[in-house]
């Protein structure tokens, strides 16, 4: 044991260094947020609650081809055609794992995952999504520009992904 070690041992220097750090942090800005009052910004393309996309004329884009139901790893999408000709499109949200495969598989751009993540309920029926609820979700969270933006950015893969698009993000150099 060198003299230095002995000094270290009796002066508790490393303990004080650590405590000085925590003391400094006392005066820095808090990193936590008070959730219901403040909300953290959600990145675009967040995989949240489902919605069925609508055309500009207000009709649903979905044609019930069932590709989403086939690719779904948790088998939570039910596409049926009722006897009276009424289409039935249901998403069992409690089973869903939000992988986004349904969005990828759909050739019609009919299903999207919105940025809504606050939809808790007391019963299963409240959370269970039927066709009408899914269409209402579109109006609520994705209508207008937002929906277009979503398809432009996150409806993948596009042919640009298989080739080199003209503009592609890259390293722009260090910022001063």
């Amino acid at each position, binding site marked *: 044991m060198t003299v230095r070690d002995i000094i*270290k*041992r009796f002066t508790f220097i*490393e*303990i004080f*260094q*650590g405590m000085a*750090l*925590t003391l400094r942090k006392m005066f820095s800005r808090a*990193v936590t947020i008070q959730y219901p009052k403040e909300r953290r910004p*959600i*990145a675009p*393309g*967040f*995989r949240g609650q489902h919605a069925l996309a609508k*055309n500009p004329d207000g*009709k649903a*884009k979905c*044609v*019930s*081809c*069932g*590709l989403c139901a*086939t*690719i779904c*790893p948790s088998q939570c999408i039910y*596409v049926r*055609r009722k006897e009276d*000709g009424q*289409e039935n499109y249901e998403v069992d949200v409690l089973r869903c*794992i*939000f*992988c*986004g*495969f349904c969005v*990828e*598989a759909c*050739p*019609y*751009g009919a299903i999207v*995952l919105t940025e809504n993540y606050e939809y808790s309920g007391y019963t299963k029926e409240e959370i269970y999504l039927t066709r009408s609820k899914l269409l209402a979700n579109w109006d609520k969270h994705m209508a207008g520009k937002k929906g277009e933006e979503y398809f432009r*950015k*996150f*409806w*993948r*893969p*596009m*042919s*640009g*992904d*298989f*080739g*080199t*698009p003209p503009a*592609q*993000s*890259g*390293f*722009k150099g*260090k*910022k001063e």
Partner: protein
Amino acid sequence: MEPVEKIFDTRELNVNMGPQHPATHGVLRLVLDIDGETIVKVTPYVGYLHRGIEKLGESMSYFQALPLTDRMDYVSAMSNNIGYCVAVEKLYGIEVPERAKFIRTIAGEMSRIANHLLWLATHALDIGAMTVFLYCFREREWILDLYEMICGARLTVTYPRVGGVRNDVQQEFLESLWKFTDEFPSRILEYETLIDQNRIWLLRTKGIGVISAEEAVNWGMTGPTLRGSGVPYDIRKFMPYDAYDKVDFEVPIGTVGDTYDRYRCRMLEMRQSNNIIRQCIEKLPAGPVMADAPKFTMQPKDKMMPITHPTKQHAFFIKEKACKGCGMCLRACPAKAIFGEKKKPHAIKQDMCLGCATCYVTCKFKALVIVPAGKGLSDEKLAELAEAPVPEEITKASEYLVRQFEFVKKGPKVPEGEIYVATEVPKGELGFYFVSDGSAKPYRMRVRAPSFVHAGCLPRLCAGHLVADVIANIGTIDIVLGECDR
């Protein structure tokens, strides 16, 4: 004088630790045989979190089984995804574009940092350092936010795909990640200020769970747990996958092989990961992010647009002459809009047709035709229009559409054979072993999980130590029971 044991009549005590114990990192049950405070024997019991991921994988196509790997090691889901994709790509025999490789490397190293941060946080918390926990989670949160920027999810990312990645990275993502890498080394210094020289930390980690290099290899350890003993084995160096052969990094190793060495190894590894990310951002080439292997990937959506765009009011029509009456389309139609008897030409009831193109895709005899802008027309008119040549735009789009339907409904056929591909995940060597019988689903999927092997090393590490050191040992091998039990 009689031995102490005789005087006090001591005997070995059999104690359960877990499965519900906050410091066991999941649902790990340890049965301890203790003599006073000293461990005589530790028997780990695993399987409380068994969800049958390997068996589930056999009933899903290779594409579908990807989210299962998220749920194995949920602390570093991205690395698991990448490991799975690398393995399946090798089985398919497809090459990933350069840009996708770099993006994957970035994502994988982010996952390594996120994993080591959580490991340090909980390991320090177990040993008794509360502040480190909070500081580590501050940075981990930052990484999770960055994950959200690239793929829309924070924990179960499902970002890489077989053949590339889900979507290209955005400029703002690269910029925030660069900012993170600028900041991160100073944050590591903060953790080290708190615990690196702290006398309590040193007492709790130095000389605990010592394992020699030879023994560590024999017990099957991998990753930082092995490197702490001084074995410079890293799959990123020895069998480079993705872009690891294009970046410079060192493999930090320990000397003694105790808990403190493994801690040092992981701290240095975080710095190396930070370096790798910076190099990858600088070198990130332009180019495609999905492999050009149409059979094995989803089809480009815009290519299908001439048929699938909502404003295109196409009608589907069955040519009477060509229809053999096989009934394939009849069974496939989700709207039940196709009628007809067996071996006689079928017909579509146009008012019931939804226009999903399922019949078009299933028909083997090319009896089905797409009539452009034919919705709402009568059957006679459609029959007349159906004889006209189909526009080239639609023929091309239909090729993509057929392939998309086939990819989703059947999955690509895989060459027969077996394959084992190992990748370096933060915890060690994660291997995927596939046996393929030539169908679209794996005949057998087996995962070599580092956590499982490391949990098996616990008896060796804990023997002779005190009960409190069991916690330090569980922390130091960095296990996640989701991966261990699968």
